[in-house]
């Protein structure tokens, strides 16, 4: 079975996918993951999971361009220019 290995390089950092090992069961997977991704003390932690348990999501739908919850949905340059001009005019 293939086990995917995720490693954390330092406490506080995100776990990143590091690679995979082939192993007969979890005990072997632990032993092999430790060796391949930790024998030099290069990881403070590992997550090891059998490949079949991983759910892959690779397609995302946004047909109607929902920009209201993104930064690019708010072009404020023109409005700001107009508001500044109006404020300046009121001050005169």
């Amino acid at each position, binding site marked *: 079975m293939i086990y995917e290995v995720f490693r954390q390089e330092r406490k506080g950092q995100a776990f990143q996918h590091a690679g995979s*090992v*082939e*192993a*007969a069961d979890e*005990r*072997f997977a632990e*032993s*092999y993951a*430790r*060796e*391949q991704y930790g*024998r030099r003390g290069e990881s403070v932690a590992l997550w090891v999971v059998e490949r079949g348990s991983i759910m892959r999501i690779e397609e995302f739908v946004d047909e109607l361009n929902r920009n209201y919850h993104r930064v690019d949905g708010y072009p404020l340059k023109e409005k700001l220019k107009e508001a500044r001009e109006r404020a300046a005019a009121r001050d005169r």
Partner: protein
Amino acid sequence: MSELLLEIADDELILGWRDSEWTGIAPFLEEDVAFSSIAQNEVGHARALYELVARELGTTADELAFDREPAEYRCSKLVELRLPEWERTIARHVLYEQADAERLERLKASDDPEIAGLAAKIDREEIYHRLHAEMWHERLKDEPRYVEALDELRPLVGKRNGHSSELTTLWEEMTSVRRSQPAGTTW
């Protein structure tokens, strides 16, 4: 105490040397990597122990490891054998780890804090060796060739009444480069 330390050091050195013979040709790649770490740890344990003894005797770890005659080593017959079959290598691994665990417990109780401290460090690394041995034993325990190997090797645990010719062959190979230049040459 030097005697016991040398006994353990020689066992670990020779066993580590034998175990390192699998680097590159173990049954599969992941195991090759794992078993090589075990071999390196064993040689590393030997080195640490030799360093302790070397200070007492006024020599160096390398001189203790390489420059004695085969007859002067205190290793057991169990570790000397060349075992190119995986079932025999694992059988030895399992038997050795059990015996070594008991020996390390005695060393951890030593009055000498340096020795007790080193024994504790070694023991912590050995945890992984024991887990590895158990893991393989679980898988192989019903295999006839493995059971035979255990039966074959069990009587050799702790046998220190002389050496087999295999130690001499190993020693000659192990020291061939070193002996090609005068004693004291740096490598």
